Structures are given as structure tokens and as C-alpha cells.
């Protein structure tokens, strides 16, 4: 038993793993749901297609993580059951992904701040001793590498674009940066999973995120705001008001017709 167990005796490996897996699955689900709202409404046809691709990847990732979460939990809940039959306080996504789409610049900035965390996290998870986690991370890190390439490129081009695109990207950055820091937290559960040899060491993700964010923002001629981290709380089930509406939309049919199959 290590110090963390002593600090939080309720913490079990399976409990911590379930929480981490729902964190990963819920981030993908909520962000995928947000992005899919652009389908048919993008600023250019090619962007419409590319963004729908990212949304599709994220929905696919959701299925993988939540299915594994259900297996770890061992109560027979499928990925769909977890996605459609939990209320907001059981969701474990970060606040960043539930932020509204805003203009296309806000959507892209949110994506960039997320991708810059997502890729190094997944690469660290490919080294997990638990093969189920390593295999999923391996598969989806290939998709996310492309997401990060694309969102970094667009942030640079729009930041260092016209006066208006620069202004919009700076505004997006100012609004979203405080929500990004929550992603970098290592919970007691994460620390337990690392020390017990379940997942790879994810403690270097923050440094990699910082490096990616700073270098892209510099090329984009955007200034990183000094504002403090927003309160966060997603991993404890504390969310913003936005999530309830998003879930009402997402879960409508399953909730209204619980005895139906689709």
C-alpha cells in the first residue's frame, strides 16, 4: 500500500481506472458532439469535411474507451449505456470540451488546446503495462496526430492572417486558455495507476503541452494570457451549465423511449 492509498483509502485500482477511462471517453464524446454541430455549417466545404472527420474519429474513440470502462466496471454497462444513461454529475470530461462552439475560431482554438494535450497523453498511454489501454492509445494516437497537425496549422494561419482573424483567434485564446489547465491535472487516481504499473507515466504531458502551445502561439503571433486556471472540476463530476443542455440533446431518444432498440 502506498501513500496515496493511505491518503484516500476508498481509492481502488479499478475505481481509478474506470474514472480515467470515462474521462477519456467523455472528453471524446462531448467534443465530438460539439464538433458535429458544424456539419453542414462550416465556412468552406473542405473544412466542413475535415471537421466532420475529426468528429467521427472522436465518436469512434468514445466507443473504445467507454466499452473498456464498462468492462473494468464489471456491471454490464455498454459504451452506449454509459454515453446515454448517465447524468451530468457522472460525466468526467474536462470543462474545455463542453464550452460552446462560438465562432469557427473558438472551435479551432478549443480543438488545438485539446489536441496539444491529447496527443502526448495518448503517446504516454501507449506505454501502459495494461495492453487494453496501450492498444487503444496506439490506434487512436495516429488519428490524433493528424488532429493536432491540422489544428496547429489553422491556429498559426489564422493568428498570423488578417487583422480580423488575428483578433478573433486572440479572443478565442483569452476565453479558452483558463479552461485548458484542467486537462493537465494528475489526480490521485492517475498517480495510483502509474505507481501500480497500470498505465504509462503521464506526468510529462504538461511539459509537452506547454512546448507545443507556446511554439504554435508564437508562430501565430498570439499572446498567451496570464489569466489563472478556471475552477474546473470535471473529473469530480462538477460541470458548467452547458453540459446539461448538451446531454439533453444527446440523450433525448434513449431517455424518451427507454424500451426501444435502434
Amino acid at each position, binding site marked *: 500500500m502506498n501513500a496515496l492509498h493511505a491518503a484516500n483509502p476508498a481509492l481502488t485500482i479499478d475505481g481509478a481506472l474506470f474514472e480515467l477511462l470515462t474521462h477519456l471517453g467523455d472528453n471524446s464524446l462531448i467534443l465530438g458532439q460539439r464538433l458535429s454541430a458544424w456539419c453542414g455549417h462550416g465556412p468552406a466545404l473542405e473544412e466542413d469535411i475535415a471537421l466532420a472527420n475529426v468528429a467521427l474519429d472522436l465518436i469512434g474513440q468514445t466507443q473504445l474507451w467507454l466499452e473498456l470502462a464498462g468492462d473494468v466496471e464489471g456491471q454490464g454497462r455498454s459504451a452506449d449505456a454509459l454515453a446515454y444513461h448517465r447524468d451530468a454529475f457522472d460525466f468526467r470530461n474536462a470543462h474545455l470540451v463542453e464550452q460552446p462552439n462560438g465562432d469557427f475560431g473558438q472551435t479551432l482554438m478549443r480543438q488545438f488546446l485539446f489536441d496539444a494535450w491529447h496527443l502526448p497523453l495518448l503517446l504516454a498511454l501507449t506505454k501502459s503495462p495494461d495492453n487494453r489501454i496501450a492498444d487503444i492509445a496506439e490506434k487512436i494516437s495516429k488519428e490524433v496526430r493528424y488532429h493536432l497537425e491540422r489544428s496547429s496549422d489553422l491556429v498559426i494561419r489564422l493568428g498570423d492572417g488578417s487583422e480580423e*482573424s488575428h483578433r478573433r483567434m486572440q479572443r478565442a485564446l483569452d476565453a479558452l486558455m483558463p479552461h485548458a489547465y484542467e486537462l493537465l491535472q494528475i489526480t490521485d487516481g492517475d498517480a495510483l495507476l502509474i505507481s501500480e504499473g497500470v498505465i504509462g507515466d503521464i506526468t510529462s504531458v504538461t511539459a509537452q503541452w506547454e512546448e507545443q502551445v507556446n511554439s504554435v502561439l508564437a508562430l501565430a503571433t498570439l499572446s498567451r494570457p496570464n489569466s489563472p486556471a478556471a475552477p474546473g472540476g470535471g473529473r469530480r463530476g462538477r460541470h458548467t451549465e452547458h453540459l446539461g443542455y448538451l446531454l439533453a440533446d444527446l440523450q433525448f431518444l434513449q431517455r424518451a423511449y427507454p424500451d426501444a432498440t*435502434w
Partner: protein
Amino acid sequence: MYAQMVKTDSTGVKSIDDMSEQEAAFQARIDRDEKIEPKEWMPDNYRKTLIRQISQHAHSEIVGQLPEGNWISRAPTLERKAILLAKVQDEAGHGLYLYCAAETLGISRDEMFDQLHSGKAKYSSIFNYPTLTWADIGAVGWLVDGAAIMNQVPLQRTSYGPYARAMVRICKEESFHQRQGFHIMMKMAKGTAAQKRMAQDALNRFWGPSLMMFGPSDKNSVHSAQSMAWKIKMNTNDELRQKFVDQTVPQAEYLGLTVPDDTLAWNEEKQGYDFADPDWDEFHAVLAGNGPCNKERLGARVTAWEDGKWFREGLLAHSKKRAAIASDAA
């Protein structure tokens, strides 16, 4: 099939005696089933008619994203969500191939967008109807994609090369969409009482508008003859409509749903169904901009375009900066 009432600037077929030598040679190539390619000579009217038809088809694909896109956020399972998202994305892809095919005829995508946004160019009437329940997503795949395939399969043999080739790619994906739509309908029709009610309601609302997709009756279709001579329209509206009804009625029976047409009956002699005309007044009202969702659909496209202006200009400004730096360095 997303092209209805495409004008040809003529009401009849030019006879061989009225043709110049060049026109006669062109028609002879078409009659021999040769493909016409972008750089080759073609009559002005052939070019204009094709631009109208292909751009109308392209516009239909991107406006067609909207009624189905309306249910992506509410798709009932993760798998259904992924399938629907992929489908709506395919439609954007079809729009892209078709805009590219039209561009080979000497019109830019921006010009085509302007024509759509100003209301000058049309898109298929079917996309001006609302999607009100999840069963509508099944009905759109089953009926609307089913009707589209009826027209698009023969268009793979159309005389204009880039259009024919775009159609080959599109048809592969459309058949997949139709199967997915039918699968949703099957789940609904064989599901709970509430699901079955949604399925029947969807068929009730989409049956007439689906029949309208083939355009007016042949006797009222003044532009068809020339387009058929040019092989940019391969069958008459009524032929395709009949084929669609003959294919769809047994599928509805299999689903246990009732086609909303009291006059529907098998006609042994013609080996096809007799069926009622859709409401042509409604069809003309929808084409004139007075359908249930015309304003929302076109409005959504215009908003997307206008809201995206800063984005497109920002990217352009960046590429100009890069080019300036590159030329300074050179």
C-alpha cells in the same frame, strides 16, 4: 437525383438539318456513346445546361446535409451517430466532386455559391421538408436516396466525362446510404408501437415529396427532349418515377407500413403499380420558395458562408504573407 426542371434554353430537339457541321459531328459523337471532355468543343447550350444541372445537383448535396444534420446530435446510439455523421460528410464530399466537375465547364465555385445564395440557382425540392423524428432519417435514406439512385445510376453513362466519373463514385456511396436508411426503417417498423408510429408518420410525409423528386410529368416537362438527345438526361421523369414506385411498394409491405395512396394498385397489364400523382401545386410552391423549410435551408447556407468570410479571408491573408516572404527571400 437532385436535378429537377433543368432548363435547356430550348423547347425541342434541334433537328439534324438545323445543326451546323460542328454540331452535327458533336451529336454523332454522343450517339456513338463517346465521352465529351472539358477541353473539347461543345455547343454553348450543352455547356450551359450541364452547368445548371451539375451545379443544381451539387447545391442539392450541400443543402441536403441540413435535414439529416438536424439529427446528428440526437442520434440514438454511438454507432448510429457515427454512421449518420459519415453519411452527411459524404454528401459534402459529393458536393465537392460535383462543383469540381462543373468547374471544368468554366464556372467557379464562388460563382455557383453566389447563384445558390441569391436564389438564382435551385436545389432539389425534397430538402425543403423538415426531419421531425428519428424515423425521418430512415425515410430520407430509404426513399430520398432511393429516388436519387434511380436517376444517378443511368447518369454514370452520361455524355460528359467528368460528370459521369463523379457519378460513379457517388453511386457507390449512395447505395450504402440507402441500405443504412432502410435498416433504420426496419428497426423502427419492427420496434415498439411508438417507433412504428414514427415510421408510418415518416412514410406519410415523405412519400409525396419523394415522388416529386423526379420532376413534373413528361407531358409537362418541356426541357427533357434536348437533354435526352445530349445524353445528360437518360430516362424520362415518368419512367423513373414508375421504377421507383415499383421498387419501393414491396419494401413498404415488407416493413409492414402503408403507402399513403388509396389508389395504389398492381396493374397486371403494365406489370407495374398504378399510383396517384403527388400534389403538383405543392411542388411548384416549394420550387418557388414557399416550402416548409426553404427559408431555413437557404438561410443556413447563407449564414455559413457569411460567417465564414473572415476565416477564408484570414487564410488568404496568411498565404499572401508567406508568398511575400518567399519572394523576398528569393
